[in-house]
């Protein structure tokens, strides 16, 4: 599967990046192709273009705050989860994709 993901936590200091790492790790393990954008204290990094999103099968949104530029995901199937869930049980999250 081709997946795009975004992570964002309230302070943008730690969990944004921990969740991103967790998602990448799990995707690799399960054999998916993935690109993860982080919206943290350093702003948007590894930004997803509209083309990235359009080329993907599904978008995984792990955010505890409102996303920046949410309109990119208007036309794609979205799975939205709290950041904590990605940390706790990433495989279960992937099971819902």
């Amino acid at each position, binding site marked *: 599967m081709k997946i795009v993901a975004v992570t964002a936590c309230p*302070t943008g*200091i730690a969990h944004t990046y921990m969740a991103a790492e967790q998602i990448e790790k799990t995707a690799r393990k399960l054999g998916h192709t993935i690109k993860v954008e982080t919206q943290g204290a350093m702003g948007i990094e590894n930004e997803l273009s509209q083309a990235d999103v359009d080329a993907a099968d599904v978008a995984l949104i792990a955010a505890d705050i409102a996303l920046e530029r949410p309109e990119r995901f208007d036309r794609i199937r979205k799975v939205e989860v709290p950041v904590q869930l990605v940390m706790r049980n990433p495989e279960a999250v992937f099971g819902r994709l």
Partner: protein
Amino acid sequence: MASAYRFTCPLASGMHARPASALEHLARRFTADVSLTNDRTGQSANAKSVLGIVGLDIRHGDPCRIETVGRDAAWAAESLKVFIEQTLPRADDVPVVSERRPEDVRLPPVLRQANAVVNPGTAVVGGIGLGRAFAVGGFTVPDSIPLTGVDDVEAEVQRVEEALGRLLSHYDGRLDANDDGVEADVLRAHRSVARDPEFSRTIVHAIRARGCTAAGAVAEAEAQFTGMLAATGSAVLRERALDIRDVCRALLHQLYGKALPRDEIGLSGDSVCVAETLTPGQFLALDRQWLKGLVLAHGGTTSHTVILARAGGIPTVVGVEGLDAAALDGQDVVVDADLGIVVTALTDGARRYYDMERLRLEQRRVRVHRFIERPATTEDGHRIEVAANVGSAGEVSQAVAGGAEGIGLFRTEMLFLARKDAPSEDEQFEQYRRAVVDARGRAVIVRTLDIGGDKPLPYLAMPKEDNPFLGYRAVRIYPEFEGLFRSQVRALIRATAFGRLQVMIPMVSCLDEVTWVRGIIADEQSRLATEGVAFDPGMPLGAMIEVPSAAFIIGPLSEALDFFSVGTNDLLQYFLAADRANARLTALANPLEPSFLRLLDHIVSDVHACGRWVGLCGEMGGQPRYLPVLVGLGLDEISLATPEIASTKALLTGLSAARCRALVEQAMKASTARDVARLLDQRDHWRPLPLTEPGLVRVNADCRTKEEAIKSAVDLLYAAGRTDRPRDVEEAVWQREATSSTGFGHGFAIPHGKTDAVGANSMAIVKLRAGVSWGSPDDQPVRTLILLAIRDTDQATTHMRVLASLARRLMHEKFRNQVEREQDPTALCRLLHEQTESI
């Protein structure tokens, strides 16, 4: 003649002691009888009696009536009407310590979960003290004095009346010496109780009607009036009961003197004094070696007792409501003047909290201690002398031991205050000699007598002034009291034979004052030379710059003077015309006002242009926040209280003089103090610090809860000097924790918070001896926590990148195992910091 006037009580707290005593004061001026009636209850009282008025329990909105009967009844009614309409509504401003309820206190999480009994009060001297409580009594009649059984009733009545008379003149005498401030307010309240007709009538009645002794009668009066006040249901009035108790106690002392128990209390082991009130005399009788804290049910921030406690560094909390001193006697209590609470019924958790607090303060002290012996220098090698302010010769050796590079201000007022006549020249000489000898080669700047209308001396006939701070004081009074000044000058000149002594003149506003002082000094020097007394003829003479006019005649002053010291307290209040003590003006009396900074910069550059030396000895010198400004101004010296010296030296090593100068240049161009504050908050002038360092690592920590573990990590930041507000850091971390647990499983947690309470982005690592529950997703207890405190204002730094990569690496088991195994702080720092940085 009779007259009546009706009104409704306008006072929110009712007719409490202060308005009652004002009403009584007025009523006494008339010969007519004045009665006050509370129409809600139908009770009446003599308005010439405070106790009578207070006993009416007049509350807000109660309908009341004043009736006057007698010769000047109409005039009395007219005056009282004006008083009630115009003065009374404003009498509500109660000058008592604010009452705080337990819910007003923001307890740190560890203490909150400790279930100890917390009694809020108001901290007046900072610090934390733990010890066994001992009660210092207010009012008790010792068993040795009988309460009843008087043979000669009239002789006993006369004895009481004489004692009351003596007590009243005692109050009058003290009020003559000082009728300003809280102390005087209290004294006036006491005096009005002592002369209250109800008070003496009750005592005399008890003797005549029931054959009480004087002691028995006073005890009865005490019980009756305090009971009556307690019954009114007003906290303010209950507090007034203490005034009555104080007056009764003082009256007993007048009556029995030596037969009463002595104030001295023998202490052994750490102790905390708990009292309703404590007089300065009672305080001084306590063994300071064991006194670890002071808890007072009432007492202002400016009482002499509190001033003494401050001088002795005794943590003090006042205004603690409803504390039963007698019941606490013998129990361990904590006076926590940092939180403004008294903790009783110490639980295990509370003890652990205070053990942690002790460790926190001790570690900070040890860190700062290293700087005592070092010369004060900035990061870029700029020297700025750090000196001490002292109030007596006895403090000099302490200051030197605390790292003082000189004595920047020796206030000589203490030598002159609180005595019946002026100290002799020899007595003064002995003090100045001791100061320079104890300074061991360091310069001692002695300020000549700074006294005047605000602090009158009984042996100087000084006129009373409406505005003593703009009046007849300091250098301005020297010509009138020339003999007194000459004796001080002679003592100072003589002391120069024993060390480096410099003389400084206070309140200089024009050149003539300096010229006059120079003349006197030259005169006394030649006399001493004729007398064959040894002295150093080159004794430097300087002036305080505290009157704005002096700042604009630095050139001519420099012709006559060798050095200057800026007194920021007075300079600021004169420059901005804002009384520092006026709570409504605190926002205005801000030393960061760009206008004030420009004034300071002008002073320093003018003094330096004249080739002279300039220091600063006001409160501004002791506040870390202002330090970059003081460095940037290019001052040669700052003088502050001894306890701040080592920490100020430590802070200086983190500052760049060049960048501080740039800060001051920018600050002077700013429009408002707010803009300057913002510049200070940017902290560009501080040396950048690494995210973590070995001092921010604690291994094998003994923490039983998540709360303790977080505190332990935050305390490391405090000990390392990265924050002065650890509780704010803790709160920021807990705020984040409230959104969701930062435990991410595998025994790790990464608590974090955004707060400007840290001076630099910081990471503290705590490894626990035993895991604590953290609400982690895998329900595993946490054994390793990595706490991040990130500044709110400057996140866009490389630190954030480091943290992001660290967060990612923590998702990998291999890395976590490495962190878990490593027990050496230095290696752990390298592992967490450098390796992640290189990613």
